[in-house]
């Protein structure tokens, strides 16, 4: 982090007011959101189409981001992943032809978690910033790859199905980590 960034942090810390929000329910809610999201991901579409197997892509999710060494960093990584998934599923889904209701519930659930954490993030920002950021950048690269893949394939059915399978894998990983985090 260079000096400019540090000054920015300092300014933010000075000017933002600390709110006394109720944030205790976020870990419990997070677990529920992950459970629900996995169910809805399955519900919104059918089984992975055979014809899309040829186009299978290897995105290589950076698993070290979820290593349990630093709890706060892992929690923030999970919240960032929610942001990225929410973004991806807001794109043009007409060719995917998925269940609209399940999709809406999926997005709405993710968004609720994102919004509530935003309100509480003021308390957490100092922790996150001081950690090594390489992993965060790797995470961004991973989602950038998926975004580019979807754009290149013009958001066709197979690209969506592959992305959905990838997000499912991602959420399952997070689910495991979250269970261990809270035990």
């Amino acid at each position, binding site marked *: *982090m*260079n000096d*400019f*960034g540090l000054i*920015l*942090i300092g*300014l*933010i810390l000075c000017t933002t007011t600390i709110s006394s929000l*109720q944030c*205790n*329910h976020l*870990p*419990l*809610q997070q677990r*529920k*959101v992950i459970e*629900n999201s996995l169910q809805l991901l399955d519900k919104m579409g059918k089984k992975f189409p055979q014809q899309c197997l040829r186009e299978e892509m290897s995105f290589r999710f950076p698993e070290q981001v979820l290593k349990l060494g630093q709890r706060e960093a892992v929690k*923030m990584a999970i*919240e*960032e992943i929610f*942001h*990225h998934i*929410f*973004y991806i599923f*807001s794109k043009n889904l007409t060719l995917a032809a998925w269940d609209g*209701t399940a999709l*809406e*519930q999926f*997005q*709405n*659930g*993710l*968004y*609720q*978690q994102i*919004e*509530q954490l*935003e309100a509480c*993030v003021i308390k957490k*920002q100092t922790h*996150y*910033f001081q950690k090594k*950021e*390489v992993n965060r*950048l*790797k995470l*961004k*690269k991973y*989602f*950038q790859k998926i*975004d580019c893949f979807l754009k290149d394939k013009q958001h066709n059915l197979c690209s969506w199905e592959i992305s959905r399978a990838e997000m499912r894998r991602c959420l399952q990983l997070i689910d495991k980590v979250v269970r261990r985090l809270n035990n």
Partner: protein
Amino acid sequence: SQRKRQSSLRLATPSLEPPLCYFLVGQTNLKSPQDIQVYVVNTNFTLRWKYTGNDTDVTFSAEYRWFEDFKVDGTEWKKLPGCQNDTRTECDFSSAITEYYDKHHLRIRTERREEVSPWSSIFEMTPYDIAQIGPPGIELQSINGVIKIKVSPPEANQVQKMWIDDLSFKYNLVIWENSSNAEFRSQSIFPTDKIYDLAPDTTYCLKVQATYPLESKEGLFSPVHCIKTTHKVNVTFCATNVSILALNMKFHLHWDNRYKQHVSYNVQYLSGYLKKLYDDYSVKWLNVPGCENITDTQCNFSSIITTVSGTFYLRVQAMIENNKSCLSNEVKVIPLVTNEIGPPGVKVDISDDVLLHIQIYPPGGSESEVMRDNYDFSYRILYWKNSSNNEEEIKMKEIKQTIGTISDLTPSTLYCVKVQAFSKAYNKSSHFSKEECIKTPGDKILPLVILATFVTAVVAVLLVAAPLIFVLYQAYSKIKYVFFPSCQPPLNIEGFGGQLFNSPYRPTAEEPIENFSIIETIITEDLNQIDFKDYKHSKQSSRDSGNYSNDDDTSGSKASEEMLEKEIV
């Protein structure tokens, strides 16, 4: 030729920059650029530096390399496009950078004709980390005393983006009255939003910045836009005081309306996430089933809360005859946060070992599973002795399970219990349940023991006493018979003569007939006969209870014997 030698030297030692070698090869007085800075806004990269030398006809050239995919070894140094032969001390090299998450190295040197300065110190950067969020775009509309604002993201319509995830932006609005000493008001807004609480017919100025909360990044402000608010038309029939009452996941919307004429209402809802998107969500409001065209000022909208994960907005559209309608304020529903927890059900029981068992039924009725799943209930039990003396201490116990046990109870006491469900995570607690009272049994044990002992004793006594009494009686009668026989003659001998027939002694029918035959034989003989008769008498009379027949004087002659025979017969 000097240049060639320089370049060959560079190749030989690619990672080292030994300034000494350059001095040896090519004489130069040129100073290297210093104080390199990179200024990035969105995908626009500007390189700035300082040149402290006195020379005026110098140019600058830059080089760069980057570390692909977080590798340790970087690429070769390449010329930095846009920063070659610059005369100013800044250049734009946006076209060179495409990998925003990879680490890059930059360096510059001063050049003058054939002379070159040493390379400056390396400037290391990761584009994403130093990039600033550019200003967003603003569109304003003034409607009915309210400013409608539409924000477009910083890199809208750009192909190459630094901020790929533009949904993660949170927009910060700063607004003030266009007058002196105006107060600045700062608030967070959605990409499409309305600004309320403004004075009508007033000019307001505002500016918006995009922020990235997860990384605490604040972007540059947009240019200031000013707009005048219109006159506010007071619509009389709008729904007011829109509020939510939610208990055990049953959600009700309530509102008021002071309008006296007939008004019908439509309650509408919107999924919360739609506000985060850049599309116009005003067309996406849907009617709540069962609350369309109603006249009642309340609506049960539990049916739209399909999952507990998900924020919703609700509003009431009021309509009167000539198709005029008015929209109320919006209320936000976060199901698990908005909902109130009802009291749990309680049943009490006392077991034989004087333990009070409390069976708790989680609140929610039909929705109890959903609530239990999401709230992670704990239960607070209050219990106390219900005596006439109200000074009894109320004790408390907290449990996670639905069965609680209380020990250490005093017997023959009325205990009362009430239970409250609470969620530690959501900081919510229900009202207390109704009081359930139960009396602990008296000391049952001691009276039982006493009773049992008494009964056993009585039985034992009876078992022992009865045979004893019987034995004693038997002994007594035997002894009496042996030692104290009765001396009374038999009554039939006493009344001998004329009272024979009146004697109470009568032979019974039980007498065996054989006796008669014996008597006959006795008569033909002598004295022995009499003995036999006497013996027979005594035998007969011994059947009586105590009257013994004795030997009488044998004055009774044969006549008496005959009499006797007759009698007997």
